């Protein structure tokens, strides 16, 4: 018996028709089909993709496939984003970023680097458009599409999150619900009539994943010790020259990446505490080289702090920069501090997850409130016993 035979037999008993699931899936597809108008062109004139001499990497192929369909949308989105008000100033973004890079480079100290037995602490305020089915799922936008909309709820969920992270996979997540707002008054009434069911993490249900240990779980509070979670990432080996940093990101992504992905990765470096001033400066300088970035000099983050916002409207289908979504990266140009990140739907298009969500809806809004190094999951920065 070889390993493939063993694998063929593994869980074979699970594979059997499930009429209920099939019926629900079929209904969901029929609903989608009914909502779709036929193409405006005869089938024989449907655009064909030119044969490529060589298969491009997945993300490039997606980009090409999207190019024609999204060109007009991107143009319109660009007009919406960059031409809609006196504060939108695309020109000068590169110059501002280079100045901010110089400020970042001059920061004192090496940055926050936890010792082997320490944890990185981060506190954020978040507001996110979520969809949840009580007792089953909670998902961020685009996460899933309910096959039974009557039992699903969608709204903007505000909460604070504290995360303790170590690179030993141990840590803690504490989330406290702030409030829920809905896209319409009718949706709120429907939700209240159903008993105000909360999204899964905040429902107070005692069920939890085996890789977590409950510290406090109640209605509106989800506080667990994470026994097998992600680390905080290591950035010490990344180059501190902007061009080399971009190449390192491309290498990590195994191929050429679009600017939306690069901007997202550079921001991930900037929003981490355990990065050096030199690396942060390189990230700001690398951002200055990326095309398509707008600048708003009068931005406010989720908690009302003022700063500048870089903005980018996604063109691809990837999760980094989905088409029709504008991401704003908010920072303080005077101190190079990172303040927040906001994703807004500017062009709903015809993607499944945008159904019922109007243009201009904020999909996710994060404000970075506090960072530090602590000695245990029961400490916060500034408390006795912390570094």
């Amino acid at each position, binding site marked *: *018996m*070889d*390993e*493939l*035979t*063993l*694998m*063929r*037999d*593994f*869980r074979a008993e*699970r*594979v059997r*028709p*499930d009429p209920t*699931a*099939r019926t*629900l*899936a*079929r209904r*969901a*597809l*029929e609903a*989608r*089909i009914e909502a*779709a108008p*036929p*193409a405006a062109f*005869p*089938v024989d004139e*449907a*655009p*064909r*993709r030119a*044969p490529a001499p060589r*298969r491009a*990497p*997945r993300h490039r*192929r997606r980009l090409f*496939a999207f190019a024609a*369909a999204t060109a007009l949308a991107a143009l319109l989105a660009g007009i919406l984003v960059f031409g809609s008000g006196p504060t939108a100033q695309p020109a000068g973004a590169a110059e501002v970023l280079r100045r901010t890079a110089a400020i970042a480079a001059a920061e004192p100290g090496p940055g926050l680097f936890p010792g082997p037995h320490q944890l990185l602490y981060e506190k954020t305020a978040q507001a996110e458009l979520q969809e949840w089915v009580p007792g*089953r*799922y909670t998902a961020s936008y685009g*996460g*899933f*599409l309910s*096959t039974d909309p009557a039992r699903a709820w969608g709204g903007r969920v505000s909460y604070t999150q504290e995360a303790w992270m170590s690179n030993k996979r141990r840590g803690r997540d504490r989330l406290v619900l702030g409030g829920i707002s809905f896209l319409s008054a009718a949706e709120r009434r429907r939700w209240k009539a159903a008993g105000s069911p909360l999204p899964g993490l905040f429902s107070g249900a005692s069920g939890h*994943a*085996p*890789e977590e240990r409950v510290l406090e779980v109640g209605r509106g509070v989800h506080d667990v010790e994470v026994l097998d979670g992600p680390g905080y990432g290591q950035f010490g080996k990344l180059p501190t020259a902007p061009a080399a940093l971009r190449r390192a990101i491309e290498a990590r992504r195994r191929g050429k990446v679009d600017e939306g992905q690069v901007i997202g990765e550079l921001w991930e470096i900037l929003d981490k505490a355990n990065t050096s001033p030199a690396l942060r400066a390189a990230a700001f300088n690398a951002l200055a080289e990326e095309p398509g970035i707008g600048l708003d000099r009068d931005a406010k983050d989720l908690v009302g702090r003022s700063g500048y916002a870089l903005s980018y409207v996604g063109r691809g289908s990837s999760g980094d920069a989905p088409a029709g979504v504008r991401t704003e990266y908010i920072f303080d140009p005077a101190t190079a501090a990172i303040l927040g990140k906001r994703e807004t739907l500017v062009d709903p298009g*015809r*993607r*499944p997850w945008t159904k019922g969500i109007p243009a201009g809806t904020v999909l996710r809004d994060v404000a970075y409130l506090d960072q530090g190094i602590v000695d245990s999951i029961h400490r916060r920065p500034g408390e006795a016993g912390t570094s």
Partner: protein
Amino acid sequence: MSANQSDSAAIAASLADPGAFAAIFERHYDAVHGYLRRRLDAARADEIASQTFLVAFDRRARFERGRADARPWLFGIATNLAHNHRRHELVELRALAALRPEAALAVEGVEARLDAERLRAPLARALAELPTEEADVLCLLVWAELSQAEVADALAIPLGTVKSRLSRARGRLRDALGLPADAEAVGANSNGGDRWTS
């Protein structure tokens, strides 16, 4: 809609007549659901199988019409959607890996079945420890019954990459299960056109 119509023709027809896409669902839902069910718990498999066809419908204009068979495309979508749930897949595999095999009596003629029972937990552990990209190749090959060329198509990677990932994945499984290298003689697509058989 002709029952003999190819997937490609059905998808092309659905551009003008969206209802034509239902044929794709009827042909392939069970296979996609079965593949996902092997990887995930029932609720997630149900949800992602449904989502796979919604996403496929929305992207049907981008289906490469030179491909007659939609299965690699559908399994590719399903695999990508399942990535969001990889953590749960691993948790389930690890839980299975932690189970002790039932005490087995050696009865004439059932050694192979007992072997399979004995190796079930180590196999779950080995699958949990495979890198995601190698697990994808293996699962698509064995559970979705795609050929190596179709796996390459589904994952949008070169055929050579499929072969190297498959080779590495099989080696890891053999090591974990304590099987000799010559166990590879059975099955394993040796070229791009063959399906795995055993």
